[in-house]
């Protein structure tokens, strides 16, 4: 899976592998990407703090909609997957391919749980009346969290391919460990972004008596 012209023999000017460097650059760019999406969501929350109107014409508050326990659970799962990813990377560095496989399977499994929760959440919200079309809130919420979900899905796909690739025996040595480490960087980043989204999109809605944006529900009721 190595790409560079002569990565295995030529030392780089900085000592950082090309692949690791390019992943860092991609992540810098992705920061701006998510930054823009998150700003869009927050700007519209500030502008329209009071939620959305569902199909029956009822005013709905975002705190009624969110299932914060479920989202906290999936957040926790994603965090734990990062932990397993770190174990997988370190296993690879030690050349313990079996332990790598075990941990990577764990990451994939946790990633899939997270995605499952998101699918559940989306369908649930949809039935509660929040659609991409009926409000600005729906548009920003689904596109922001959906884009993050796509990142997770790409990560899962990448790791699945890597898992199977490891059986060909070609995922080994320094280059193999590097490939896994780069995938790990990506995974950790996607995880960190979720922590930010979870805070900025979910948790702040529960701050103070009226929610962070001022005119949320007076008291959070289910």
């Amino acid at each position, binding site marked *: *899976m*190595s*790409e*560079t*012209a*002569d990565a*295995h*023999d*030529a030392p*780089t*000017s*900085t000592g*950082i592998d*090309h692949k690791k*460097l*390019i992943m860092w*650059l*991609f992540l*810098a*760019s*992705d920061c*701006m*990407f998510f*930054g*823009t*999406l998150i700003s*869009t969501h927050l*700007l*519209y929350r500030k*502008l*329209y703090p009071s939620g959305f109107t569902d199909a029956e014409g009822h005013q709905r508050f975002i705190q009624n909609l969110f299932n914060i326990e479920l989202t906290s659970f999936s957040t926790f799962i994603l965090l734990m997957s990062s932990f397993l990813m770190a174990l997988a990377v370190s296993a690879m560095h030690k050349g313990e391919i079996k332990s790598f496989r075990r941990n990577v399977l764990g990451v994939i499994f946790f990633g899939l749980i997270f995605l499952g929760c998101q699918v559940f959440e989306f369908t649930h919200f949809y039935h509660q009346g929040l*659609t*991409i*079309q*009926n*409000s*600005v809130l*729906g*548009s*920003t919420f689904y*596109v922001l969290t959906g*884009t993050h979900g796509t990142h997770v899905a790409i990560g899962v796909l990448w790791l699945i*391919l890597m898992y199977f*690739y490891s059986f060909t025996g*070609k995922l080994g040595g320094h*280059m193999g460990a590097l490939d896994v480490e780069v995938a790990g960087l990506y995974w950790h980043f996607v995880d960190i972004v979720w922590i930010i989204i979870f805070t900025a999109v979910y948790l702040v809605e529960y701050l103070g008596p009226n929610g962070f944006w001022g005119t949320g529900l007076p008291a959070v009721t289910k």
Partner: protein
Amino acid sequence: MSHDSHHDPVACKTELAPERSDLGLIRPDRTTGWTDWLTTVDHKKIGILYGAFAMFYFLVGGVEALAIRTQLARPDNDFITARMYNQLFTMHGTTMIFLGVMPLSAAFFNFLVPLQIGARDVAFPRLNAFSLWTFVFGAFVLNASWLFEFAHLAGWLNSFDWHKALVYTDFAPANGWFSYAPLSGTFGQNGQALRFTGVGTDFWIIGIQVLGIASLAASFNFICTIINMRAKGMTMMRLPVFTWMTLITAILIILAFPAITVALIELMFDRAFGANFFNPSAGGQPVLWQHLFWIFGHPEVYILVLPAMGIVSEILPTFSGKALFGYPIIVFSGAVIGFLGFAVWSHHMFTTGLGPVPTAAFSLLTMAIAVPTGVKIFNWLGTIWGGRVRFTPPMVLSLGFIWMFMCGGFSGVMHSSAPADSQQQDSYFVIAHFHYVLLGGVLLGLMAGLYFWFPKIFGRMPNAPIAYLASGMVILGFNLAFGPMHYLGLAGMPRRTHTYHAGNGWETWNYVATIGAYILGAGVFLAFANLAWTAFKGKKCSSDPWGGRTLEWSLPSPVPEYNFAQAPIVATRDAYFEDRHGGKRIAYENDGGEAGVHMPSQSWMPLVASTGFLFAGFGMPMMAMGVPHAGWIVITGLGVLILGIWLWAVEGPGGYMLKTPAAAGSPAPAETVAH
């Protein structure tokens, strides 16, 4: 690793024994002709392809511009319809910026950066090919909208049911190069997704998106290359200025493009899936589009100009016989421009009513950004000052660059004053401003670069008399065309209007501008034709016809596949020049020779993967406009993309060893040179 021990070193890649990739397919390494160009991973060939496409699109954009100018030559003219006029100026702007200037800059990045830093390739050769083909397909998609427009005008589409869904107002994009919402977006409640404009906007959205991917991939690659693949002794402060400006440009691209990527996704969701990001009837804020666009858009103008500044910073010292005056300051001011470029976007939005504090802040910051720009101009003047100036064609064009760009800077500073700008906005004054910076600045700089490096690229010298004539025509025609627009703008002539009535006092200067535009067009055409002729038939020249300063001039022309037979070690800035004039400053490592140097294998996969964008690019606009089953084309495209990337990953980088002229190895150079 196993793959490069498959072969003994060969003198020419056509001698390679057949090698199978890890996938079992025979690698297209031994090919020549078309296959070679389609599968190449050689940064020099990729650069030439970028350049050829860019020059082609410059001519396309030029024809569009001349149609616009023909229409405006006379008051109340009806040479083209208003509908066609909108499509023309939109495609003109979009073409010039995304398909002309950016890829021509990319051509220089590709060809020069590895040579200037003493490397044998870029960090990710196949990713580089992917960027090229993605650009090519993005450009196809954008221009494919013209095919629909012409087919519609000819009535060929009438027999299809779905034709009705496509007809709104336009087939080619027609919202201007910044596609402001709500015009580009939707209106109406709850997912009705009524649109102001037709399928052209969808072509624009997906086209720019694909081009953005190409730029991003290329930028990651070049930052990696510049940071990581410098020859020994090539410290950051010894990098040629062109390479520095490439680095800053690439950083701007990776930080600025995400804003437009997101904006385009949001707009696409509005149009295709009835979202409400910019839909005013559902509470969306069209002004958000303006912010997101210009957060990208202002850095973009520096993405356009910094490479040209880098080119000029190489040419002026060469033909003044002096080192660049104030190298660290030029580099630093480039970085400051890049940084401040992110803090001035709202100067494009003074008239939206930002409020007094933001308006004042953006005004001040915009004035501030003129300072590092001015610093550069003074440094260039300092470089020429007291030098033995040789007025070769590239030098003439570079001097034209300084002069014209400076004029554009002056009108730019005028815009920075918000009260003044509210008079100038959307008038021909703004057109004059950005053509002075973009055409008088960037295009002259890029043309100077073409005339400067063509002898290196093809080993042939462009015809000088024709070059002088063309340069003269370009500079004269340009000033005739755009100088009067300052006046027209201040006299109230609005931008983007397909005609004007007689009696406003605009007739004369419009007529003059059109004449100038034709002279300019003929000049650019002549300059390009001269170059095209040179590439095949020009007179052969030595490897260093100008007395160059940087490493690329130390190589034979045309440059061999492996670039450097032995890897260079440099002891100073401008090492090649100093080495010839001031004692030993370049040494060579003891590599290459019979043992050969490692070359990356060619591959079909970047091309295959980027074809996915072609499908997605055609399918997406059809889908947005409700053509049945078009969604499947998009899905096919994504499938092709993923498949291509997967095959690319598992085929492995491959590689072979290429013999180079005998390895000598040479003693280390003296450490430094005083500047």
